[in-house]
């Protein structure tokens, strides 16, 4: 918003005004696919400094923009035509809303005179996306385009980030207007509070200093707010255990001795138990999601709650907060550090017994897996080796399923924005397009998509986009010839009746051939002795996308597990096996 574009005051079409507005908003790349209603905008896009990447499906554009946003911290932009083009963006918008991603979706709409007539390719995309956009617009007047675009970026990237959709009628793109980029934005109904109240910080520090079993419950908000450095200072000041949720992997180094791992349905015993036995949850940018709490009424029964979040509606939504701090979590942590120092100077709680208990659980119940007895590839081992060989600067994306959980468990995350997944929505098909967007946002990083054989078949067409646009991502298909996570539930809860989860994907498709046909290098691996050299081969190819079909054992399961709807206290470390609580002093 700082600079006034040179085009200000110039007469142009609404379409050119739209593109000039995106340029003024410092957009460097957008992902999209044209069609009739948005076609006027594609003409000035042809001349624009903005890189436009032509996807093969609009869902790919949406997830790519999300992947780009998650690695860069900037807004991601996707663009589509009306009707089916716009509805293909629905899933990425829902996904971005659930995971608080700053995503801008631009859609063409039928001419304003035709709105409401069931015109060709007319869909009420503003109505459709109301539930999962932070805000959305229908623009019918070309003069409004710059103001709306400026507002859209402001809303998407400030406060709790989220998706904003701008639907523009075709005639608004075609008509003439005078371009005027606004110098300021005034929204009577939007004014996010970013600075914490002094009293709340004092109360928070006092609550922490009084507790003897505190745990840092860290959510994705810490990454969104770029607060990882401050988090580490705060954690080390108190010396309390930390858990990082699925959305927060990388917010705190996995290698840090105070890190107990990920909590939740497939969390570590130490992380889940830390929350259950704590007397205080220091909740930072997390939202008490059901996949973390398990049965809510039995979640962290003895804990007081300190809840810091930028979204006031998260406070008390699922769990009552004893102290709430509504602000940007980076500002909250920065204010909390001196306040806690002062509080600890008066009263330094002894956390040593608590830490001893947690460390004992951490060492007794590390994450692990068995190698298949038949000598076939273990999916966990494949994922673990990819992580070890490619190193901690690598960016990983995942699909949804067992492979996603293993990728969250068996890869060590040391840095924020290196783990991208569809946490809140659980969108199969997120992995490949998100990796594409991530690679565009971080071209020098190695980007691996850890994908399932099921997920890969939903969005792999974007590998064509990658091949043609010099976006050399790497894809590991964890091919267990199943919708594995669903199959796992069938094993556990439906007596092994495998209704419609057998994909037969070791027979068809031929993944390496499919990859080659899309302009990628296709590799496959099915013996443990070939694993490292296959990964190294994939690592050596940097001028083309690479797809590796890892043909793994199909019966591997994700452990630990807290079954849906049950209490975290009922965590299982293997089938019908609970931790040996009697031997733990808790």
């Amino acid at each position, binding site marked *: 918003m700082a600079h006034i574009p040179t085009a200000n005051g110039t007469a142009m079409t609404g379409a050119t005004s739209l593109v000039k507005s995106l340029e003024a908003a410092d957009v460097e790349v957008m992902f999209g696919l044209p069609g009739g209603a948005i076609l006027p905008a594609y003409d000035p896009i042809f001349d624009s400094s903005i890189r436009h990447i032509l996807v093969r499906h609009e869902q790919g554009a949406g997830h790519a923009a999300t992947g780009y946003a998650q690695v860069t911290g900037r807004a991601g932009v996707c663009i589509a035509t009306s009707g089916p083009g716009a509805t293909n963006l629905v899933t990425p918008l829902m996904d971005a809303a659930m995971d608080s991603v700053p995503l801008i979706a631009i859609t063409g709409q039928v001419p304003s005179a035709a709105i409401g007539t069931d015109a060709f390719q007319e869909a009420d995309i503003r*109505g459709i996306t109301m*539930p999962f956009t932070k*805000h959305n617009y229908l623009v019918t007047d070309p003069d409004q385009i710059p103001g709306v675009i400026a507002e859209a970026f402001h809303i998407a990237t400030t*406060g709790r980030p989220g998706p904003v959709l701008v639907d523009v009628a075709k005639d608004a793109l075609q008509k003439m207007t005078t371009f005027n980029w606004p110098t300021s934005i005034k929204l*009577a*109904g939007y004014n996010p509070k970013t600075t914490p109240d002094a009293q709340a910080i004092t109360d928070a520090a006092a609550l922490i200093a009084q507790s003897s079993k505190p745990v840092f419950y860290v959510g994705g908000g810490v990454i969104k707010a770029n607060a990882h450095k401050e988090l580490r200072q705060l954690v080390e000041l108190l010396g309390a255990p930390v858990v990082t949720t699925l959305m927060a992997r990388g917010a705190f180094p996995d290698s840090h001795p105070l890190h107990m791992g990920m909590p939740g349905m497939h969390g570590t015993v130490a992380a889940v138990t830390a929350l259950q036995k704590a007397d205080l949850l220091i909740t930072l940018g997390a939202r008490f999601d059901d996949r973390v709490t398990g049965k809510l009424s039995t979640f962290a029964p003895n804990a007081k709650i300190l809840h810091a979040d*930028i*979204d006031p*509606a998260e406070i008390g939504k699922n769990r009552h907060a004893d102290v709430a701090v509504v602000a940007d979590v980076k500002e909250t942590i920065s204010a909390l550090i001196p306040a806690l120092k002062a509080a600890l100077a008066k009263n330094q709680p002894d956390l040593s017994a608590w830490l001893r208990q947690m460390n004992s659980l951490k060492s007794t119940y590390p994450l692990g897996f068995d190698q298949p007895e038949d000598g076939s590839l273990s999916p966990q081992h494949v994922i673990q080796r990819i992580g070890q060989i490619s190193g901690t600067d690598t960016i990983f994306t995942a699909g949804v399923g067992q492979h996603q959980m293993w990728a969250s468990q068996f890869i060590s995350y040391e840095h924020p924005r290196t783990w991208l997944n569809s946490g809140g929505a659980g969108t199969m098909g997120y992995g490949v397009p998100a990796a594409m967007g991530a690679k565009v946002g971080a071209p020098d990083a190695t980007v691996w998509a850890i994908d399932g054989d099921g997920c890969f078949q939903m969005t792999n067409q974007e590998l064509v986009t990658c091949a043609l646009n010099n976006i050399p991502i790497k894809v590991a298909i964890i091919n267990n010839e199943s919708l594995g996570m669903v199959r796992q539930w069938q094993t556990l809860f439906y007596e092994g009746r495998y209704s419609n989860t057998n994909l037969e994907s070791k027979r068809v498709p031929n993944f390496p051939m499919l990859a080659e046909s899309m302009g990628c290098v296709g590799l496959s691996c099915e013996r443990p002795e070939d694993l490292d050299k296959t990964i190294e081969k994939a690592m050596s190819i940097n001028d083309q996308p690479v797809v590796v079909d890892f043909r793994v054992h199909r019966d591997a399961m994700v452990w630990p597990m807290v079954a849906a709807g049950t209490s975290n206290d009922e965590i299982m470390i293997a089938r019908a096996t609970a931790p040996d609580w009697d031997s733990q002093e808790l």
Partner: protein
Amino acid sequence: MTTSRRQHTLEVLVENEPGVLARVAGLFSRRAFNIETLNVGPTEDSSISKMVIGVAVEGHSLEQVIAQLDKLVSVISIKDVTGKVKEVHDTQPDYQN
């Protein structure tokens, strides 16, 4: 969290723009908040409309209903006018996100 059923009346100022009623009604329905009554009318400022919403709070707290409503960008202010006119949210900083 409130479990007993309580009736509240909220006076909500919103941007007078197409779709704003759908935004508010949609929010109530998807969050399973109960609207008992709803009146929409003009204010002296033609760019702002006033909604008077009767809410039956059940299973959610009134604070949660207000906080979710306040997240709508088109919502400018919310007052709890249950019984008598009592300002709850209007004088507070606007916690929009």
